[in-house]
């Protein structure tokens, strides 16, 4: 959360996240190098760098794309989501090393411009087997560059969350390009069942996780709609006891995405969409009296949806009442930051 430009808002969690990430990357590079030297003793340093960074960047992108659905299916994965941006920028940097070394090794010794050579050295664009796979990697890297360059909150504010998110959803296109980059490049050369198995397993895992998460969400929303009882504009959503202390129940009523929080013997409802990156507020918890978004820690007060000063982000609020221990929510939103009385849970 920021009111002024800040390069990186470091905190203890982010530093810990980055240290673990750096450690795993170093461990992978070391293990990969030792294995390559054992199996290919005559390998050149350039080839070793190309292979190590290429495999690492692909694995990291695969992992990054798994984090979202894993966190939706099981909240224990939410900490992985917290600093995903650093993971993404690191993936781009590693992919860039792979790309630059490839261009130096394979395209810089001819008469033509190295970048032009990437597109013109192999022109079998009509053949699947001989397709110029490096072009696919080039465009994937370009997308990752755009994402890394605009990953800062400065761009989020200036592009608006809607456009920023749309731009960053190009990562799925980048992933598709990279799958074909690998399958039509390294796999065609190596033809190893082990590498085909690795790529296939990763692809299968990623698709399964995303489809499962989408299915679970859709089913959950449908069940809420089916269960909700209606009366005087209010919908009965659950029992007050169903909501854990300092946590929320998320409901989707009349097109409104609402998070109903329970705290200090009270219940309040706010819009479920964080103003930062449209994160799911209701998957977070109340920390120091503030609703805290699980994605990047943006905070709001539960009774009025306002970020504590000096921050300016605000959420819509909703009327809530408790009748016979059951929580009722009116999905008509109040303007952002409007104070609404919390419903008291009777002992």
């Amino acid at each position: 959360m920021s009111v002024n430009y800040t390069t990186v808002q470091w905190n203890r969690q982010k530093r810990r996240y980055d240290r673990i990430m750096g450690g795993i990357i170093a461990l992978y590079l070391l293990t990969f190098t030792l294995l390559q030297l054992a199996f290919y003793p005559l390998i050149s340093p350039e080839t070793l760098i190309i292979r190590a960074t290429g495999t690492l960047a692909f694995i990291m992108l695969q992992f990054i794309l798994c984090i979202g659905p894993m966190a939706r299916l099981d909240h224990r994965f939410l900490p992985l989501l917290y600093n995903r941006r650093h993971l993404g920028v690191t993936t781009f940097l590693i992919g860039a090393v792979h790309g630059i070394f490839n261009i130096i090794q394979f395209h810089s010794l001819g008469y033509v411009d190295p970048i032009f050579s990437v597109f013109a050295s192999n022109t079998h664009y009509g053949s699947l087997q001989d397709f110029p796979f490096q072009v696919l990697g080039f465009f994937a890297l370009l997308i990752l560059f755009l994402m890394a360059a605009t990953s800062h909150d400065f761009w989020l504010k200036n592009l608006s969350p809607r456009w920023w998110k749309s731009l960053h959803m190009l990562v799925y296109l980048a992933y598709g390009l990279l799958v074909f980059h690998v399958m039509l490049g390294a796999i065609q050369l190596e033809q190893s069942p082990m590498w085909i198995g690795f790529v296939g397993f990763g692809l299968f895992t990623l698709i399964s996780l995303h489809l499962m998460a989408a299915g679970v969400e859709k089913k959950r929303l449908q069940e809420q709609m089916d269960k909700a009882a209606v009366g005087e504009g209010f919908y009965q959503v659950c029992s007050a006891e169903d909501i854990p202390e300092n946590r929320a129940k998320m409901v989707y009523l009349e097109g409104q995405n609402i998070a109903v929080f329970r705290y200090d013997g009270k219940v309040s409802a706010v819009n479920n969409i964080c103003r930062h990156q449209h994160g799911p507020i209701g998957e977070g918890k109340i920390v120091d009296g503030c609703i805290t978004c699980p994605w990047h820690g943006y905070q709001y007060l539960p009774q009025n949806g306002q970020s504590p000063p000096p921050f300016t982000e605000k959420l819509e609020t909703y009327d809530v009442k408790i009748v016979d221990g059951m929580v009722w929510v009116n999905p008509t939103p109040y303007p952002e930051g409007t104070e609404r009385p919390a419903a008291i849970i009777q002992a």
Partner: protein
Amino acid sequence: MVPELRKRHRIIWQIGSVLLCLGFAAAVWVLPQPVTQTQAFQKIDPPLPRILDTQESEELTINLRGDSTIGTQLEFIIKEPLAQPVAQLYWQYTFIGVLGPKGTQRFPISGARLAKAPYFLQIVNPFEKTGIQKFNFNP
């Protein structure tokens, strides 16, 4: 995540999963098949028991082997590969085969080509149309 955004994710992955799986299968389908080596020449015939005549050069030992009941054959023991890429063999001006790069080769000689000694063997470079080596056999 906004429901609209979540729906976009769902649609992207539903379409993407089909495209990615099809692309993956297609890429596996077009994997180059392992190259199978075809035999450069036929299985070598067993040597006939008697050597009728022998000729030597720096690279070759050539035996004319024969047996009155089974037939006659020409045996090439290649000591060193010839300098020429291809060496064709002509026995009495009739093509009988191509000499390989190493090992031992045997070629059957039909009775019609053994009517009258001496016999003439020529090794020819077919590209340059020149003779490489010539041998006379007089058993």
